[in-house]
């Protein structure tokens, strides 16, 4: 099932994945949640690199 990222009302907190169905989306949209881009993944740091 497809999921979308949404953020809490007033932009508080981290984006949350929500099922992209009307039953899941509509109550959240009415409560003030808005769609947002997926969060950026943290940059991976590789410490042991072959030279």
């Amino acid at each position: 099932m497809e999921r979308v990222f949404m953020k809490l009302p007033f932009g508080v907190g981290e984006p949350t994945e929500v099922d992209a169905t009307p039953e899941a989306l509509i109550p959240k949209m009415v409560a003030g949640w808005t769609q947002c881009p997926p969060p950026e993944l943290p940059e991976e740091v590789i410490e042991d690199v072959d030279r």
Partner: protein
Amino acid sequence: MSTARMQEILIGFGKGKQTDIATANLVAAIWQLKKLNAALANPKLNTEDDAEEFGKGHEFPTQTFKTSWDVSGTLEKYLSAEIAAWAMAFGLGKVVKSGTTPNFTYTCTPLFPANGDAAELPYFSFVEQIRPGAGVVADRMAVGCVVEGWTLSLGSGPGRANSKITVEFVGSGKVTEPSGITMPAATLEKLLPSASLALSINGVNYVSNKNIVSLETSWKNNVRLDGGFYPGSGFQSPADATSGAIRGRLEFGNRQGTLKFVARFENGSTELTKLKSQATGTAVISLTYDANNSLEVTWQKISFATAELGETDGLVTVSVDCLPMWDETNGIVSAVVECGVDGICQ
């Protein structure tokens, strides 16, 4: 000199939303669609004069002043998945996009500032052209428009006219001439005919019982037009105080939804009973082109405000006006539209 015919009109408008009221859609975000009504969205200049002022020795005007600009227009179209997605997203104001080509899904609800949403509706640009270029007759773009309201009308009969949408829009007053837009190719639309209707109102399936005759449902934003002119809202020509003021914002006012329908009335019909009991339920209106193109409007809680017996084509019918009400979980209304076009109100 060749006569310009109304059939030459090209219209295009923002499929995507503007970044703000003053920044026009770029051509990549504009699509070309057809319409049924010939009326143009003419910019209207409001002026004042000095006739009433003393000191000039008479009562006649000697000078005029450009006060402000108004833009408004109407789109009347046969209902399609594409225009339905656009009207619901821009008209209700809040949209979540999901899916991938050829099936994008736009889930739309009204904005609720109490829960952190904006009070301004999403903006789009509206372009009208008649012979743009060297032989131009008209070429202008109204910047910063919002949907004032939409009306879906469904009737009995096989023709396209039995499934229509009318969208009213108003603008900030800002007009760019020439538009600077090279109109894209027309978008092929997937019609949502009346014969595809699925309808359930207050617990009754009006399609399976073959009783529905006609239906009309609408949404109105009652945009605060005067509130758009605030100190500093700006001018038609930036920094030119003689060019006439334009609106710096377009916010919704007290919004209103309506739903009314006519159905055959027979033994066992419950409309009059439900009127007396004020029973409540949902109203779900669905129209389909195919698995990837459809519209579903849900009034989350309605009761019957009036239900009156009458006749249609010699048959006993009941005409019902519904009252859309607020549901604590799902709000007042939602629309879920599937179509193959990406980027609507994005």
